[in-house]
């Protein structure tokens, strides 16, 4: 029993990342009808927003400390972050410690901006082209973005720690009446799951309960009619692209402490996210979220020792296997809408 709970928990954080990326992909696909292969790159850029922000916070100048001496006997030089000068040492330390959550604030405008530029600058010209062309051009864009990041940040993963307060692990076992230390779960992953739930909830609430969201949903159902009613649907869809980019970016920011960001993390997630989208059903937002969590949890169950003994290697292939089975038995995916992407 405790093993099962542990695996479900393990699946949740990866599932959250899949669900967030798949949600963004589906938003773009549902509104603009574009298959965006650069979405993983947006996730990666989000993670690098966190890296850049924490680097920016620790920008420092050297100060000569008269009280200390270095090993040669000269007065020691110490690096003092500029932020100390602004806020004092205690507050400055706290801000540096909370760099990752704080970078969320910075990353939203950055990601929305990148999304706007991408949509207006490139993807706009590809609405009328076939899906294969869209896939290819965004694939090229993903390579370019990835290489630009690699050029500036290098090829090695950059550790970006979570705030001190979340660095420990949470003992679920003790709380739920099992033996202590059987179900241990890092706090940050819990935070990630909660964060993902909030973001997903916010996106759904935005689409469901605001006028803007209503128009967007109407546009998803029948773009032409909404346009004929005198609504500038293109502008709204561009904004949705920005939001989708921001969702991917935020997912990336919060993922930075779980997995040190490197330039190809986006591609690694993208392939799986596409599988997730297809399993959930192209164009279905709840389907994308459901499939994301489902596949995340399935993956962690498949890596249990008992299962691996039974079917060796299943943890490596379970997602793809499930995808193949679902695609062949339920042609529209789990919750796919009728008439979307059916040739």
């Amino acid at each position, binding site marked *: 029993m405790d093993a099962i709970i542990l695996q479900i928990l393990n699946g949740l954080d990866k599932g959250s990342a899949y669900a967030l990326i798949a949600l963004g992909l589906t938003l773009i696909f549902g509104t603009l009808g574009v*298959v965006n292969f650069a979405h993983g790159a947006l996730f990666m850029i989000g993670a690098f927003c966190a890296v850049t922000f924490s680097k920016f916070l620790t920008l420092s100048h050297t100060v000569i400390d008269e009280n200390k001496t270095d090993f040669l006997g000269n007065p020691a030089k110490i690096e003092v972050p500029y932020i100390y000068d602004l806020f004092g040492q205690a507050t400055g330390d706290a801000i540096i410690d909370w760099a990752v959550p704080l970078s969320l604030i910075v990353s939203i405008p950055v990601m929305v901006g990148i999304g706007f530029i991408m949509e207006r600058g*490139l993807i706009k*010209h590809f609405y009328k*082209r076939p*899906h*294969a*062309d869209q*896939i*290819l*051009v965004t*694939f*090229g*864009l*993903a*390579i*370019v973005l*990835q*290489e*630009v990041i*690699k*050029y500036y940040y290098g090829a090695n993963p950059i550790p970006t720690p979570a705030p001190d307060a979340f660095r420990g692990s949470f003992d679920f076992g003790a709380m739920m009446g099992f033996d202590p230390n059987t179900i241990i779960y890092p706090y940050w992953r819990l935070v990630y799951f909660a964060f993902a739930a909030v973001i997903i909830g916010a996106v759904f609430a935005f689409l469901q309960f605001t006028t803007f969201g209503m128009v967007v949903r109407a546009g998803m159902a029948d773009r032409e009619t909404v346009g004929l009613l005198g609504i500038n649907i293109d502008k709204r869809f561009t904004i949705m692209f920005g939001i989708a980019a921001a969702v991917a970016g935020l997912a990336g920011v919060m993922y930075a402490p779980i997995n040190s960001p490197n330039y190809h993390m986006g*591609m690694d997630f993208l*392939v799986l996210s*596409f*599988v997730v989208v*297809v399993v959930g059903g*192209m164009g279905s937002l709840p389907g994308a979220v459901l499939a994301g969590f489902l596949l995340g949890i399935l993956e962690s169950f498949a890596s249990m020792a008992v299962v691996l003994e039974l079917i*060796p*290697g299943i943890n*490596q*292939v379970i997602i*793809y*296997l499930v*995808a*193949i089975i679902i*695609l*062949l038995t339920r*042609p529209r995916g789990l919750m796919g809408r009728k008439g979307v*992407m059916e*040739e």
Partner: protein
Amino acid sequence: MLGLNKKDFGLLIIVAILTMAAPFILNPFPEGSAMAQFNAGYPDLMQRLVIFGIFAIGFNILFGLTGYLSFGHAAFLGVGSYAAIWMMKLLTMNVIPAIVVSIVIAGLFALLVGWISLRRSGIYFSILTLAFAQMSYALAYSVLTPITGGETGLQPKYTDPRILDGALEAGQSPRANLFGLDMRASSELVMGNWVFTFNAGYYIAAIVMLIAFYMSIRIFRSPFGMMLRAVKSNQQRMNYTGLNSKPYTLAAFVISGMYAGLAGGLLVAMDTQVGAERMFWTASGEVVLMTILGGAGTLIGPVLGAGLIKYMENIVSKINKGVLEQWFAFMPDGIEDLLVTMIYPFVGKGWHLTLGIIFMLVVIFLPGGLVEGGQRIGRLFGRKKPSDSSPDGSKTPAE
């Protein structure tokens, strides 16, 4: 000739001449000069150029003709490679059985994958093929280690049974050969400052590539190829006229899988080792890039694209800061530094960036790839001529 019309035969002859003369053409710069960087006439790279040409030609038969975008073709290349290396380990170091078996095994695997994947089309087909390829990759890395060698991969060893070959003498290492002709045997021709290398392995691969190219021309011009184009333009209409398109697409899938297996087998014949990384999805992505870059659906495009990408991978990636500084050394220091800083991100380790940019530009502006670019330039000159020949250059006004 050979069942081809004049134009196609001309194309085949041009390709044949180019591949046969490749050691000269790819080595235009004298040894030791600053431009020797750009020489691609060494056996290893030339072999790769033609082998990936075969891979791309095969991919083009599927994608170019039927429009089905497979994102998992590297799996067939990998399966072919594993089949070939096992033939070398068990049977003989002669490359013929290795290549034949790699084609057959890759074809069978393609039959299985294609039979399942072709139930769907569009992006679903892409995802299904991707899923199969990723599964093969993951399995080759983990569970199938006894067959695939896992992370270390496979090489022929001194201790392998090799039923047909006699026992090796002590100290002799197993070498791939064609009835005794070592694949690595090469002769060098020195002409002044130029050194041209003629490699046995390259010429065998090139001849195989020519045969593969000839077959692809025949497929393109056959009624079968016409049927595949019909699938691309409107499959639904084809089905409504009472034709079952599945056997045709499946045949195209298997043929292109066999081409991939052939490429895999040749890779092993040239360099006797296999690792699972050649089945990773980026390898599948690369063949897509090659085909699109050259021009999908054209005969020569995939070969050009494969050549360009492999050339860039090997040559552009070798240019480092020192080389750049050497090139621009004749300029004033400030300009030299500026140029070096500007160009540096695009060469050396950053060659993927150049590739990505070129690829995006091609997809945006030249959906037909390099071949379309060539045609446009050709048309540009073709159109200019008549206007130049008119006596006073004035155009006759339209009605």
